[in-house]
């Protein structure tokens, strides 16, 4: 019985790996027939935000999931419409147009204000305005702001939905049968949650770890899930945690929580570091104050740089195939594809590890900073 179940497990894992490898292979099949291949532009397009979820391009046709564009303007107020109205940069709607990924506003007497095929250069030459938060909030008539649901925001919402589905069902299972052994999804989540509680929260924070445990668990699972989401091919290439704004917000959460729950000892360590002679304090205090701000910035940059660098490396290995094919002919492309594929798969596996590791390091450091903030005096 046990041998049968481990056999099934091995077969399932093997099938999963094979599918993953084959999917990697078919990633090369598209894209070799559209003129000169610009690796830099392709990589940037995958790593940056977009107003639709671009799934695949077959020949001339782009297949993508449109996302809502939400624009607030001082002239027109709120405009909500799907990004499919932009026709991938060829159309204008309500005087809004997509110029190289940015939404611009065409002038008010522009005849192409609502058309399906737009000559961007001609339309722009008749006057256009760009997004300006300062302009909007100062009441300037041409000011408008872009608060659309972009691909990154859609990725965040997708991560939230996944987390809610998993954890609400696990919590309900515990509520229904509180004294029974865990079954199913519970047995997957329980060791991980206990790992965070026993290895990260308790040693770092000490007595009051329960106050911060929900925050630490949320941060950990959100970053882990968002990282994994960015690694799944063919669903549009999300890059949630690889967006510096998202990483910054997560770090700001830690910063706000640390600063708000800091006790006298914490501020005492900053403004009167124990064991430091008085004449050295004018040097230590600015350093400590800078430390208060650099710690969240470092958290943000570490997460952002690790994830973005990983994506760029994988994309670069795949682009190598097309670069070689363009330079030296199709045979060179096929030849390089073996090496590229091997490295690409290896980097993908490495990125799976990095996804977990970066989530763990972010949570561990947040726990350490929180622990330092609520530390009791012990001399």
């Amino acid at each position, binding site marked *: 019985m046990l041998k049968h179940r481990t056999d099934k497990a091995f077969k399932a894992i093997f099938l999963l790996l094979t599918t993953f490898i084959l999917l990697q292979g078919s990633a090369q099949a598209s894209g070799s027939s559209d003129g000169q291949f610009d690796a830099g532009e392709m990589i940037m397009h995958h790593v940056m935000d977009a107003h639709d979820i671009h799934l695949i391009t077959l020949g001339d046709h782009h297949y993508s999931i449109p996302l809502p564009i939400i624009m607030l303007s001082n002239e027109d107020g709120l405009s909500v419409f799907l990004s499919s109205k932009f026709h991938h940069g060829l159309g204008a709607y309500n005087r809004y147009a997509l110029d190289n990924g940015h939404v611009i506003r065409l002038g008010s007497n522009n005849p192409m204000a609502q058309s399906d095929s737009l000559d961007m250069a001609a339309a722009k030459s008749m006057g256009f305005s760009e997004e300006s938060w300062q302009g909007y909030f100062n009441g300037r008539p041409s000011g408008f702001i872009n608060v659309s649901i972009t691909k990154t925001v859609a990725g965040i919402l997708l991560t939230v939905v996944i987390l809610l589905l998993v954890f609400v069902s696990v919590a309900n299972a515990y509520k229904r049968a509180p004294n029974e052994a865990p079954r199913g999804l519970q047995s997957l989540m329980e060791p991980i949650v206990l790992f965070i509680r026993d290895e990260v929260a308790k040693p770092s924070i000490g007595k009051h770890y329960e106050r911060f445990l929900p925050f630490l668990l949320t941060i950990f699972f959100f970053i882990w899930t968002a990282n994994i989401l960015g690694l799944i091919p063919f669903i549009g290439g999300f890059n949630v945690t690889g967006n510096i704004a998202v990483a910054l917000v997560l770090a700001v959460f830690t910063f706000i929580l640390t600063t708000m729950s800091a006790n006298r000892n914490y501020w005492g360590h900053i403004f009167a570091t124990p064991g430091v002679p008085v004449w050295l304090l004018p040097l230590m205090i600015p350093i400590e104050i800078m430390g208060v701000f650099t710690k969240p910035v470092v958290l943000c*940059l*570490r997460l952002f*740089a690790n994830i973005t*660098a990983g994506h760029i490396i994988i994309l670069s290995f795949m682009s190598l195939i097309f670069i070689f094919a363009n330079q030296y002919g199709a045979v060179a492309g096929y030849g390089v594809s073996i090496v590229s594929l091997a490295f690409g798969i290896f980097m993908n596996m490495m990125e799976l590890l990095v996804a977990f590791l970066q989530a*763990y*390091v972010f949570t561990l450091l947040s726990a350490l900073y929180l622990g330092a903030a609520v530390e009791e005096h012990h001399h």
Partner: protein
Amino acid sequence: MEIISILLDAAYAYMGAGIGAGVATIGAGIGIGRIGGSALESMARQPEAIGDIRASMIVAAALVEGAAFFGIIVCLLIVLMK
């Protein structure tokens, strides 16, 4: 004066970015190599602590890599911004 105007040429920024990225990677390599080396030594001295040592090694490596990534990001910004 000639030297100054030559050195302000934009091409040197790209060269600087490339060299900077390389030096940052050297720093990461040295740091993580030392972490790995001392971790292996201590694992050999005390095989019961292998689990703890492995966990600490990975965490320390992630932190050192973070420092290297700052350098990489600065170099990337040099190349991508005007």
